[in-house]
């Protein structure tokens, strides 16, 4: 992020902290893609994802005073979204899953060079257990490093690395079993 953008974001956060509703709305717009997408790919259900994402932002509104910077804000949102999604999946494991390719239909704003592969990968990610799924999404969707992921999910770094390794191996194996995927 450029220095100008970073300053602007800190300013929006300060204004939101001061109680300005419009500034809070800006924060929502800035981060809703990440929060919603994380929820969507965890829960595999668009309306559940919207509901969860809304709850996260409501919680943010209540907890705003504990946010110290925009970096912290990003981390906080991802942490809360992932943990809430994991809790929901563990409490309600039978969430009626809409096929991910339908729920995720808006993914391509730019042309996808291999939509079939992308769809397949998203479906396979949706089949992982809650914790490994969250780890994978935080790594490859949110670009968080293993240390940050460990902090966000209250796991050890070794557990995070193990989840990543096993999940990638599982995905690879499943992809290789379908035709057309080469390394």
């Amino acid at each position, binding site marked *: 992020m450029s220095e100008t953008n970073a300053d602007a974001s800190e300013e929006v956060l300060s204004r939101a902290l001061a109680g300005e509703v419009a500034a809070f709305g800006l924060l929502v717009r800035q981060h809703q893609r990440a929060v919603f997408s994380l929820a969507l*790919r965890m829960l595999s259900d668009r309306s559940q994802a919207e509901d969860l994402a809304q709850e996260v*932002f409501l919680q943010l509104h209540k*907890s705003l005073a504990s946010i110290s910077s925009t970096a912290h804000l990003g981390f906080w949102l991802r942490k809360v979204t992932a943990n809430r999604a994991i809790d929901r999946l563990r409490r309600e494991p039978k969430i009626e899953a809409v096929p991910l390719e339908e729920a995720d239909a808006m993914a391509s704003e730019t042309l996808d060079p291999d939509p079939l592969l992308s769809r397949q*990968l998203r479906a396979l990610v949706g089949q992982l257990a809650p914790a490994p799924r969250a780890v994978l999404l935080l790594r490859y969707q949110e670009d968080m490093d293993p240390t940050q992921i460990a902090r966000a999910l209250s796991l050890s770094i070794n557990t995070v690395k193990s989840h990543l390794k096993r999940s990638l191996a599982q995905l690879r194996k499943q992809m290789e079993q379908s035709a057309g995927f080469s390394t």
Partner: protein
Amino acid sequence: MNDELEKSLRFALRPVDPGEKFTQSVLARVAEEQPAAAARQRDHGRSYFGLPARPTFRWASATLGIVLTAGLFAAHQWRIHRTQQGLEARRQLFQALQVTGENLDIAYRMVNNQEPAGNFSRTR
């Protein structure tokens, strides 16, 4: 190597925007949770001061006007401060209840064996 797979994963997992309707829903829910009392913050009275036509009392009236204005301003500021303090106390109250509930929930789930057997010990 995993490089190709990771690259494909990153592409497949590009974030999705939920749309402006989502943003409006969030803000609507936030607004619902604000107490009606927040509206009182905007509802402050105005005072009007008229200086008497006779010059003799102009300074006395002006001084009285300034004192009254300062007093009203101070009262208004105190009221705003009190409202902000109350809203902040309310926010902290909800946060405290949330933290309490979260930790009671963790204890409840652990007590009721929602983790696989052998993963925890119980002393009571």
